[in-house]
C-alpha cells in the first residue's frame, strides 16, 4: 500500500491483483473509495466510517469517467475565475479558444485558404500570438504553430472547427 498526501488530503493507494487499483480518500464525513479496473471501468464507493461496508455510489466506463473527471476538475467551467464565466453568450453562442498544436493541418494556412468561415461557420475574432493579440484578423492572416485562435460560434461551429484543427 502506498500513501500520498496531496495538499491536506490523505489518499491511500493499493493494488488489487487481477482487478486493478483502489484509492481511498478521506472526506469530512467518511471515506470515498475509487476502484479503477484494469478494463478501464471506474467504481466509486462511499463509506460513512472506516469500519463500515463500502456502498457503491456509481459506476462509469473509461470514457465517461474521463469526461466527468475533467468537468469536476473545472476544464469547462471554473467559477473562481470570473473572466471564463463569459464563455457562453446569450442564445447559446460560445466564445472559445483553441491552441494550434504541432502537426495541425491549419499551420501555414490563412483564414481564407483554410476556408474556416464556410467549412465551420466559426468567426475568428482574434489570434493570440506569443504576448501579442492580433484582433480582427484579416482573411489573409497566416496561422502559425502555437497560435491561440479565439472564435465565436454555435456549439456545432465549434465542433466543426475542432475537427479541421486536428485534421
Amino acid at each position, binding site marked *: *500500500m502506498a500513501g500520498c498526501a496531496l495538499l491536506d488530503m490523505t489518499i491511500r493507494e*493499493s*493494488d*488489487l*491483483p*487481477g*482487478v486493478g487499483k*483502489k484509492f481511498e480518500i478521506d472526506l469530512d464525513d467518511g471515506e470515498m*473509495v475509487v*476502484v479503477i479496473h*484494469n*478494463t*478501464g471501468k471506474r*467504481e466509486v*464507493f462511499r*463509506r460513512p466510517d472506516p*469500519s463500515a*461496508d*463500502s*456502498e*457503491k455510489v456509481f459506476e462509469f466506463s473509461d470514457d465517461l469517467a474521463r469526461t466527468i473527471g475533467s468537468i469536476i476538475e473545472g476544464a469547462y467551467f471554473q467559477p473562481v475565475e470570473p473572466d471564463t464565466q463569459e464563455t457562453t453568450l446569450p442564445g447559446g453562442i460560445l466564445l472559445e479558444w483553441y491552441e494550434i498544436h504541432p502537426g495541425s493541418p491549419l499551420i501555414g494556412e490563412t483564414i481564407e485558404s483554410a476556408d474556416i468561415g464556410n467549412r465551420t461557420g466559426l468567426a475568428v475574432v482574434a489570434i493570440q500570438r506569443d504576448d501579442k493579440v492580433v484582433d480582427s484578423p484579416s482573411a489573409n492572416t497566416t496561422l502559425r504553430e502555437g497560435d491561440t485562435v479565439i472564435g465565436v460560434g454555435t456549439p456545432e461551429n465549434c465542433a466543426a472547427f475542432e475537427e479541421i484543427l486536428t485534421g
Partner: protein
Amino acid sequence: MADVLFEIGIMFAAIAGVGALADRLGQSVIPFYIISGMLLGQFVLGRLSLPMLGTVYVSESEFIAVGAELGIVFLLFFLGLEFNLGRLLARRRQIGTAGTIDLANFGVGLVLGWFVFGALIPAVLLAGIVYISSSAVITKSLLDLGWIANDEAEPLLGTLVYEDLFIAIYLAVTSALVLGGDDVGAAVADVGIAIGFILVLLAAVQFGTPLFDRLVATDNPEFIALRSIAAVVLVAGTALALGVSEAVAAFFVGMAFAPTDYTHDIETLLEPVRDTFAAVFFFWIGLVTDPLLFGGVAALIALAVLVTTPTKLVTGFFAGRAFDLDTKRSTRVALGMTTRGEFSLIIATVAVTGAEAGTFDPALAQTINAFAVGYVLVMAILGTTLMQYSGPFESVAVSWVDRSADDDPVVGD
C-alpha cells in the same frame, strides 16, 4: 468436418446459455459450464436413445481437447501477467504470513490423500486440489458483492497471489512426477529437469523483458494480440513437447510480459480469448467426466468437503488477522477462501494427461478427476453462497470470537 463444426456450435450455445443462467442466479459460471459439458457428453446424452435422432452427443473432438488446453494456457498466462513480484515483496510480511498459514490446507490434503490412496503421488495431487482456492470465482464474487472496495479484498487477493506462486512450482514438479512414471531414479531426474526448466524461464523473465517489449511494440492491436498469443502458445507448446508443464511455461511468459508497457493492452485484448477458452476447458472437464463415477467417489468428496471447508475457514480467518482486520472482515476472508475452482481442475488434468501418456494408472486418474470435478462443483457453489449470505456467519463469529477475546485479554486486540 461439418459434424465437428455443428458440435462446436452446440457447445458454445450451451456455454452461452448456462452462463446467462448462472449470472441470473448470482452463481459462479464454472459449475454451470462443467455440468453443461457433462450433460451433452457421451456419459449422459450419449447413453440416451433419443426418438428420431438415435444416439447423439458432443464428442471430445480434437478441437475441444486443444481448446481446453489453450484455456489452461491462457488462465496461467493471465496469472503471470498479473503477478508482480515487487507488489508481493512490498507487502511480504502480511502476504507471507497469510499465505504460509494457508499452506496448512496443503498439509491437511496430504494427510487426507495418504489416508485414502496410501501412495505419495495421488496424495500430492489431492493435496493440491483441496489447497488452491479459485482466483476466478473469488475475484468475481468480490466484484459482485462490492467487497472489492473493502479491506477484506486485500488479504483475499494477497493470499491468492501467494497460492499462484506456490501452484506454479507445484505444477512443474507434479507434472514431472506424474509423467515420469514409477521409477524413483527417473522421477528424481524429471524433477531435476522441471526445476532446471523453471530456472531457465526465470532467467528469461529476468533478462528477456526488453525482448518481449520489442515483440509487442506496435500500435496495431491486431499485431499485439497475435504476437502475444504466438509467444505464449509457442513456449507452452514447446514445454509440453519437452515433457514439462505447459501451464507453468505460460505463467512465466505472462510474468515476462508483465513489466512491459503493453500489459494493459494485452490484458484488454486477450481477456475475451481467455474467457472463451477457459469456458471450453470447463466444458471439456464436464465432457470427460462420467457422472456414474461420482458414486464411487461420493464418500471421498463428502470427506474432503467436511475436512477442508473448516480448515480453509480457519486459515482464512487468520489470513484476515495477519492483515490486522477485525473479526467481521476476517470472517469474510475465511468464507471467501473456501471457494475452489479452476486450478483444482487443472491439477486433476495432470493425472488425466499422465494416464494418456501411459505413466499413470488410468483408473486412478479417472477417480482423481471425478473427485476433483465433484469437489469443485460443491466448493464453487458453497463458497459463492457463503460469500453471498455472509451476514449470519459474521454475527456468530463476532459474538463468539470477540466475547472469548474479552475473557482472555491475550488474544484481544
